[in-house]
């Protein structure tokens, strides 16, 4: 199990189930998962294809709700919230980073960065300053007026990371964040994650890639919708 620490729990699964009913069959994509994410954690989730990683990520990201069990975000049970309230939780507490970057093509970098705050009615001078600051931080200070298609994949992913940080989320949720990047760019992005950590940023990554998982503190292995094992990468020296 996870090692106990004194850092506060910011996300917690309590016996979470997610079942898909397919005609006669019931697919148990998640079948009783319990886990905790503490502030400052760097957690990776791994598992074979079909083991339930995406399902878990969707619930972690409040894009989906568990069929049974409870999910707490920042101490609040969000497993029964309606669509509206879940949207609010996403907008305030979670920063998404996607495999295919998912910037909005017709918007400039600055406008993309402002999207999360716009939906909370917080667009203005402050949001602009924040966007400038974060763009600087991810190394794209001069690119605010560029369109996504004028940037390389690595640069786009940096913008996406900055966007995920715009709302000061409880945790970042990265879904194969480096899956579309070459090895050297992958390293740059993972280095960027490392530079965020001293500020207390919490990161959860879902990945197939052992090299990516090895950079995290812990790896949670899923198998058939259940937690198979927890691995402390620091103790094991990167081995699994």
């Amino acid at each position, binding site marked *: 199990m996870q090692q106990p620490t004194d850092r506060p729990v910011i996300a917690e699964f309590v016996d979470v189930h997610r079942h898909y009913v397919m005609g006669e069959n019931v697919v148990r994509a998640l079948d009783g998962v319990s886990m905790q994410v503490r502030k400052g954690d760097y957690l990776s989730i791994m598992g074979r294809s079909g083991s339930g990683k995406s399902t878990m990520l*969707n619930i972690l*990201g409040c*894009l*989906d709700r568990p069929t049974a069990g409870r999910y707490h975000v920042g101490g609040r049970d969000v497993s029964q919230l309606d*669509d*509206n309230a879940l*949207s*609010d939780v*996403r*907008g*305030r507490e979670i920063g*998404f980073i*996607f495999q295919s970057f*998912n910037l*909005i*093509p*017709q*918007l400039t970098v600055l406008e993309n960065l402002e*999207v*999360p705050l*716009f*939906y*909370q*009615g917080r*667009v*203005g001078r402050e949001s602009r300053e924040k966007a400038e600051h974060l763009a600087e931080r991810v190394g794209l200070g001069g690119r605010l007026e560029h369109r996504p298609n004028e940037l390389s994949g690595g640069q786009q992913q940096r913008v996406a990371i900055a*966007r995920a940080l715009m*709302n000061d989320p409880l945790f970042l949720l990265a879904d194969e964040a480096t899956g579309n990047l070459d090895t050297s760019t992958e390293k740059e992005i993972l280095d960027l994650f490392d530079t965020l950590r001293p500020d207390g940023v919490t990161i959860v990554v879902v990945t197939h890639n052992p090299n990516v998982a090895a950079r995290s503190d812990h790896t949670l292995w899923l198998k058939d919708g259940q937690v198979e094992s927890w691995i402390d990468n620091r103790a094991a020296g990167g081995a699994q």
Partner: protein
Amino acid sequence: MIADMLRVVRLGLKSLMVHKLRSSLTTAGILFGVASVIAMLAVGEGAGEETLKRFRDMGVTNVLIRSVKPEETQQTSSSSMTSILGYGLFYPEADRIQNLLPQSTVVRVREFQRGVMRGENWRSTVIVGTEVAFLPVTNMKVQEGRWLTELDMQKQANVCVLGASLGKILFPLENPVGQTVMVGIEDRFTVVGVLEYQGRAAGPNGTTLDECAFVPMSSSRRRFGDTIRNPSTNRWEAVELHEIKVKLPSPEEVEPGANVLRTMLQPVHGPKGDIEITVPLELLREQERQRQMFNLVLAIIASISLLVGGIGIMNVMLATVTERTREIGIRRALGAKKRHIVQQFLVEAGVLSALGGLVGVGLGMLVPQAITHFFKQNTIVEPYHVLLAFCISAAVGVVFGIYPAWRAANMDPVEALRHE
């Protein structure tokens, strides 16, 4: 709040700009719908205005009975080269009308085509032989000098009153009052007055009242007789009265009055078909009805074109929503609520059709100008029509955008994010 809305509108414009051609083609339906409606309303309004003015100029409480030449049959035309063709209203009929409708004012009118000359200036025009009541019945006013009097009638005086335009032609520099003019080749008439300029439409004789000269009924009869050679057919025609104008005391009495007149005149003139009864009020009402019909048809055309335009917008918005499923997923993941997505696509649809409406309004205001310029047809663009057309076009976009926006908002965020 307003800043946010502006942002949404700007975003909508940006998204529409991604597909410039598609967006412009989509707006074409709305554009031409709005343009054609504004243009047609302007033309209808303008044309109607002219006709209404013509009828109003005839006097809304008047009933006009005119002598018209009956259609010639084979038999009459062959035998007629020598005989005199007699038709139309008779002198005593005016008195009978007065007796039947004692409240009304009855005016007899005789008309002759004659040359009127003053020195070097000559003009062929219509000489109107009439009575004192002609002036109030036609609602005209004296500009200079005086109108014809009962005394002129009794004395069969050789006096005349000139229409404003005729006065200008014959007396470009002097005051005509007190001067003499030659009418025809042998009759001298003293000008006793000039009428105010009216600018009314030409009457059935093809001449406007401003171009006529007016003489006492009695004098015209004595000077010119009852038999006239029609210059176009070269035949002698005998017409006692060319017109009887009947002014009724109020608009309410026009219809019953007209019916009395029709009943009275039918036995004598009906079979011959040699008179024509005009009731300006009826024509006005008929015109009003026609205008209402026209507007109704227009409203239907407008609705159809807006419907078609709206369906076009809905079609494109559905395509947009499908294309941008991924964007919707992203926005939802970043905290957008359903209502934000609805708002985004509604605004986009509204902007799309409002743009069409705007260009349509511009075009719709240019077309009437072109019509006025090239066809000399009066047109009137009502600002309120323009505003209405624009608002409706914007509303159409919003209404037809509802379903696509609803579809967008109700996508499952997970599915939407997976969409390629």
